[in-house]
């Protein structure tokens, strides 16, 4: 019957349309902050100029952008994978820290092994550190029904404090003049960087993760079953899809990806474990994933955008005397506008 009254009009709702809408909303956020800046007597055009100039105007800016994007993408993937089955993983920050912690243990203990063996081993340890942390929340959700949003959030604090404990205590480098640092990693434990820049091999992990995620979600049976769970868990259960297994597994892999970010930070950037290895990468990654509707390609685009903002934050601080939090306000505004408009659409307005 519907066949006969088909096709009067057709409005695009596909990927390109979604992207355009998203870009519209992002511009709106910039406009809103621009008005805000202008009201306080700052020139918004110049502020934005500084932000983009800072990130995109020089080779140095560009390489630093890639450095920033690496943990953003990994942590966003850690959020996106569980999100596909309806889980809200806010724990990438903690998973990043445990990944860094376990990788550091490996680097300090087996630092004398040859590089070809040690590095892959550290990668595995970093992944495992995050994966165990993530799947712990997944198991709690499956077995006792504890909400994963709460457990991942709380475990973030535990993970950060664990790192603090080890760098202030057992692993503190005696030669650090009482600074909370571990000893520096041996050369064999350092993840390679590209040329003289700080861009490191973690970027390869991040891009691989995105591509694999895309393929798994789009092409495989797991992607299909995960989409069913995310869309209607009751129907999934009745179709014999093992939901509990998927919960633990997506949290395991997601956590592992965040753990890789942590491993790369200590092994490539810092060369040692110390507090503050992450400036909220896990949370920014969360933001990136939600802005991108958990879509792998969208994640790269959004990581780029937020990377520009994060770098630009430094620039406007130095050149315009504006606080760094201006950038946080822009991020928050984008987030609200995107989430808000999604909510409105759901309500049929």
């Amino acid at each position, binding site marked *: 019957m519907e066949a006969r009254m088909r096709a009067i009009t057709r409005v695009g709702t596909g990927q390109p349309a979604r992207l355009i809408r998203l870009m519209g909303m992002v511009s709106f956020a910039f406009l809103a902050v621009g008005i805000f800046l202008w009201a306080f007597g700052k020139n918004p055009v110049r502020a934005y100029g500084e932000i983009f100039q800072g990130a995109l105007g020089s080779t140095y800016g560009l390489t630093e952008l890639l450095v920033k994007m690496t943990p953003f993408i990994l942590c966003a993937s850690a959020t996106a994978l569980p999100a596909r089955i309806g889980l809200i993983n806010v724990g990438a920050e903690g998973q990043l820290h445990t990944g860094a912690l376990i990788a550091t243990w490996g680097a300090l203990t087996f630092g004398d092994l040859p590089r070809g063996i040690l590095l892959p081993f550290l990668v595995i340890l970093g992944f495992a550190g995050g994966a165990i942390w993530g799947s712990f929340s997944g198991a709690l959700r499956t077995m006792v029904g504890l909400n994963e949003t709460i457990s991942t959030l709380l475990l973030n604090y535990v993970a950060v404090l664990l790192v603090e404990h080890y760098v202030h205590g057992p692993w503190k480098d005696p030669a650090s003049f009482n600074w909370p640092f571990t000893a520096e990693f041996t050369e064999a434990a350092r993840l390679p960087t590209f040329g003289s820049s700080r861009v490191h091999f973690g970027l390869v992990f991040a891009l691989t993760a995105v591509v694999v995620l895309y393929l798994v979600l789009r092409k495989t049976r797991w992607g299909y079953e995960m989409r069913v769970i995310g869309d209607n868990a009751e129907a*999934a259960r009745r179709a014999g899809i093992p939901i509990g297994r998927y919960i633990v597994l997506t949290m395991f892999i997601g956590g592992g990806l965040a753990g890789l970010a942590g491993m790369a930070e200590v092994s490539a950037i810092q060369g040692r474990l110390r507090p503050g290895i992450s400036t909220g990468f896990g949370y920014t990654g969360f933001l990136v994933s939600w802005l991108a509707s958990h879509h792998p390609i969208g994640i790269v685009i959004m990581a780029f955008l937020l990377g520009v903002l994060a770098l630009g934050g430094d620039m406007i601080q130095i050149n315009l005397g504006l606080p760094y939090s201006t950038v946080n306000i822009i991020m928050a505004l984008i987030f609200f506008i995107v989430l808000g408009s999604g909510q409105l659409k759901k309500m049929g307005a």
Partner: protein
Amino acid sequence: MERIPYLRLENITKTFPGVLANYSINLSIEKSEVHAILGENGAGKSTLMKILYGFYRPDTGNIYLDGTPVDIRSPLEASRLGIGMVFQNFMLIPAFSVVENIALALPKLNVLFKRSEMEERMAVVADRYGLSVDPRARVWQLSVGEKQRVEIVKLLLSGARMLIFDEPTSVLAPHEIEGLFQIFKNLTNDGYTILFITHKLREVMACADRVTVLRRGSVVGTVLRSDTTEQELAYMMLGEQSLHLDRSTKKPPEGRSKTVLELKGVEVSDDRGGLGLKEVSFSISSGEIVGVAGVSGNGQKELGEVVLGLRRCRAGSVLLHGNDATQWSVARILGEGVACMPEDPLVMGVAPGMTAQENMILTDRMNYFRHGGLFIDWKAVRAEVERRVENFGLPIPNLDTPVIALSGGNVQRLVFVREVARRPSLLIAYYPTRGLDLAATKMANDLLLACREAGIAVLLISEDLEELFSLSDRLIVMHRGEVVGSFKPEETDRLEVGLLMTGSKAP
């Protein structure tokens, strides 16, 4: 001078992407009448009502109330104009009491409301129109019929003069339906106007003053109930299609049949920890339809779930093809050829945001796994789904539209076809014709008989005694989780089954 109708719709057209839901609708509704809107699923009834209620805006057309043009921009506006809608999914807060729910809905409520005063106002309305509900009961404790009455009281107290009911009977038991029609009468006697949406001819004949028939988004005509017959209405509603529902094409199953499912002394808990099934024992053979009669909520849900492995036995065992399947996983049971058409297909049977094609293979997806279960062969899926759509005459124009965009009846048909097409050995069918229109009901019944002919064992769970009697080879009656009767249909009659179902007669 010409009499001005209470409400007039002029030239209303509404399109959705790819669908013309309402086309140039003209309709007049008089004060204090019961006006039925009759049409098959997808005819555009709900869309039209949502326009009246301010939920959708029409693309073109005008609405006049008492002769003045009105612009109904929102449900709030509609309620200001005295138009109220009783939804199928009641907009009530389960944890609150009835009075609290009603108080919440009133537009001019003081910050501190007097419960006793509220209860009094409720009682007045309830007495007058036969809408009795305990004002102190929590909403979650109420039956569906009671919730519906709460909705009506709510609308009356908030000043509605015209009440829209969108398929209100689909959720009600037979005696509750009669009660609702009585309420309609009481309300119209007092000057209220009722707009009653349905696709059931019998109900129109039972309660309407006038009937407007919609077909494919357009008005076919408006007639007085007293001037028409079921036949004529059916003709208006369906057009050229055949009306004949041949429910007697029963053939005795051929050859020797084997036991497919056997339940032995099965006991399970219900959702509240009570006993959902008590000592249930019976068996079904291939090529047999066993009908389960009972008022819903008497163990039907638990029965299907225990067979599917979704609910564990407290005692007893479930045998599939002679093997003990009591501890099997859902996936294994599905793999052994058990199929289920659940009671609420949209909630339990599909992923609404995924496409019709993707949903069509949800329960037999294993057949399309390739490379050790890593990939799904979407080409093979496409071919198979197209074959199913063709063979079963599924009215799905585009396999890539998300299921949420299909009408409820079509979702139901999609799930039914999916479960049948994967050639199960046992089919558990919950209310396979509930909410379906005539044509679709016939299709569903024919499909069940075809399953039986193909040697599938069918467990048919229904509240419709007529359907059960005409389709079943054997009937079992459930009451409070127990099997209280087991007959051949010709050995019993509706009265006996009806009494057993309601516990009015000892087994």
